[in-house]
């Protein structure tokens, strides 16, 4: 069907992830619509931290796509460098999240205190897991790319990373902005 095998497989991964996140976000939206009181809970979340993390992920998506561009020009080392920047973005994202969660948990907003917080931790946690997995795979891809090998993988991991970014683009308004 005209697609390289690796990229084809990544698209199928993305397709199956759409329904996983669709299930949890769909459930959240339905509950949110029937629980007006969640607005108050959502007001507690730190919009600035969320916005900063959105910025970080968008930027890491930029470096991922630039890495893809470099790989297409055959410049493996540059692609690897840009991938490392992307991983750094993921790391920043996780650190910010860790601070947020520490703050919230220490102020009593734990996973069991209210359904809003249950969704907050589970949905963002599932997303965070995807960030971690993406970072690990990206480190492997960067290692081969540096030697100018398997350059097509740079694009494939990029597609996955953009998808993780996409999920966050929706999580951000759902969890932080809609108050």
């Amino acid at each position: 069907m005209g697609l390289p095998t690796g990229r084809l497989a990544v698209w199928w991964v993305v397709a199956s992830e759409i329904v996983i996140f669709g299930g949890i976000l769909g459930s959240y939206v339905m509950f949110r619509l029937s629980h007006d009181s969640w607005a108050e809970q959502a007001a507690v979340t730190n919009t600035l931290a969320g916005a900063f993390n959105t910025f970080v992920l968008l930027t890491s998506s930029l470096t991922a796509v630039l890495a893809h561009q470099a790989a297409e020009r055959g410049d493996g080392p540059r692609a690897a460098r840009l991938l490392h920047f992307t991983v750094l973005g993921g790391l920043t994202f996780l650190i910010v999240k860790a601070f947020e969660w520490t703050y919230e948990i220490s102020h009593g907003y734990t996973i069991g205190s209210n359904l809003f917080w249950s969704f907050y931790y589970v949905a963002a946690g599932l997303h965070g897991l995807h960030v971690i997995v993406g970072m690990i795979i990206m480190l492997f891809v960067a290692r081969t790319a540096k030697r100018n090998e398997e350059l097509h993988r740079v694009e494939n991991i990029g597609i996955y990373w953009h998808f993780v970014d996409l999920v966050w683009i929706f999580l951000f308004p759902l969890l932080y902005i809609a108050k």
Partner: protein
Amino acid sequence: MAEHATAHAHGETHHTNYVKIWAILLVLLVVSVVGPEFGIRTVTLITAFGVAIVKAWMVAHYFMHLNIEKKWVVYIMVIMLAFMLAMVGGISPDVLKHDGHNWEKLWEEPAPGAGGGAH
């Protein structure tokens, strides 16, 4: 196999200014953060979710290269989303309901000002 070669060559044939796309995304991010400051519900909803959809579209279109990907890939993704919408559509009449013929949900919305995490 010949098809693979053509599919792979696509990147160079066309030049997206990725940094520009990124800059637009950041502007949109600022819009979505500033939107709620007006305190108008409709504006908040539009700046939050309308903008999110635009951002998502831009990332998918330019960064994931759906603009130059085979069309059927786009259709698959849209079908997956459509299934999710159908699912939510089928579920919401039940989940959004708080009572029925012989039942009601016992849980009560906490009065404004109550609640919070102080458990």
